[in-house]
């Protein structure tokens, strides 16, 4: 039996709590506008998480964890062919490129980074198919949900603060004219450098996030840090009109009224009067 609903009425924390307490096994699919996530659970533990129908995940997970470089990740992905993540993982371990521990750790972080953004979804449809299983070829890592719920809730609070500070991702960034600090004296991590390399008034923050496969939370956190450090400034494109924010609220597209003639309505009225 499927559990269906909307996050507006039954939030992600409540859902995870239910899955945890009832020790459920199955697949949860959550959709919000164009975004979607699919989470797999076994006996109340998260074992797999994908967003927006991502296919092979192993190379990306290893890259994000810093186990392999971007170039190596591309090479692995291009040579993976039809191999599943599980088969690919075995090949990499047997060839001595990575350890089983590397894979478990990387996939665990990857799943967690996929699930935490869901805590910010205040609405979106969900469906939990009890008993459904992941494909055989995917790599699963059991993760206790209690910690996920605690960390997700903490990030939600942080997210809300960041969203207040940086509400619009459709603005661009430029380097500050007189930065309070010199770039050479600042220690930036890899992710921050990746963002820095795309800073240009023609690139919106959202585009930079897309280029770098970063979620809203991650890009906001990095940009907020760069802004606070005085390294960059926000540039609002001239073409950007104030109603853009309003339009982003995604009101359902209005449908056309059915093409019905007056005489149809008159016949309906006559019939109902007769009843």
């Amino acid at each position: 039996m499927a559990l269906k609903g909307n996050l507006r009425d039954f939030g992600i924390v409540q859902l995870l709590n239910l899955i945890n307490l009832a020790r459920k096994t199955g697949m949860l699919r959550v959709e919000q506008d164009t975004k979607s996530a699919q989470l797999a659970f076994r006996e109340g533990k998260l074992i797999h998480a994908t967003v927006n129908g991502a296919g092979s995940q192993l190379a990306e997970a290893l890259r994000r964890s810093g186990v392999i470089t971007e170039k190596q990740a591309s090479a692995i992905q291009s040579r993976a062919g039809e191999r599943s993540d599980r088969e690919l993982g075995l090949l990499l371990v047997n060839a001595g490129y990575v350890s089983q521990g590397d894979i478990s750790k990387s996939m665990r972080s990857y799943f967690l980074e996929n699930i935490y953004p869901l805590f910010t979804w205040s609405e979106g449809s969900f469906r939990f198919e009890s008993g459904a299983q992941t494909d055989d070829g995917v790599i699963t890592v059991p993760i206790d949900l209690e910690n996920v719920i605690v960390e997700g809730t903490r990030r939600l609070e942080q997210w809300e603060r960041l969203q207040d500070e940086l509400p619009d991702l459709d603005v661009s960034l430029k380097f500050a004219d007189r930065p309070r600090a010199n770039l050479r004296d600042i220690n930036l991590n890899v992710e921050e450098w990746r963002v820095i390399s795309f800073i240009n008034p023609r690139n919106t923050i959202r585009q930079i996030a897309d280029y770098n496969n970063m979620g809203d939370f991650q890009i906001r956190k990095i940009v907020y840090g760069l802004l606070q450090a005085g390294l960059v400034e926000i540039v609002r494109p001239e073409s950007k009109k104030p109603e853009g924010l309003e339009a982003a609220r995604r009101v359902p597209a209005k449908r056309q009224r059915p093409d019905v003639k007056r005489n149809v309505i008159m016949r309906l009225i006559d019939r109902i009067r007769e009843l």
Partner: protein
Amino acid sequence: MRTVKIVVTGPFSSGKTQFIQTISEIDVVETERRITRPEERIKDETTVAMDFGRITVDEDLVLYLFGTPGQRRFDFMWEVLSEGMLGFVVLLDSVRPETFREARDILGTFRAYAPVPYIVAANKQDLTDAWSPEDLRIALRIPPIVKMVPCVATERRSVKQVLLELLYSILDVMDEET
């Protein structure tokens, strides 16, 4: 054969199923389930997908009445049900003020789905604690241009009147457009 559709919507337990049952010429196809949430235990069963009633006008024309699920966690069905509707009725539970805010939300949602005429029906007007349609109009900030009619969903005469008022509104809109 031509089929047309009117949607009956409103908060949980506002009387949508009863409304359709009262006027439908067929036994209403109900999709009711036992209520599991303690806070919604004001009745034993609720509609989880939709109610479905029919009024045959003649051999060429049939009116279908669709009732939306009352509990908000099934509201993913609303947009599906609203597709191609002639108009819609928002039923209010006149004795439960705690549902008024939800009724306003439902009204706003359906107005966003399609630019069709609608009316608001203040149901359960036979109960002693019922708010009057006038008070409800103020409470729910229903604009004067929108028809607000009293209703007792168990009485066929009352349900007929609600549907007729909606059809008159549809005619008015058609006349304005021509």
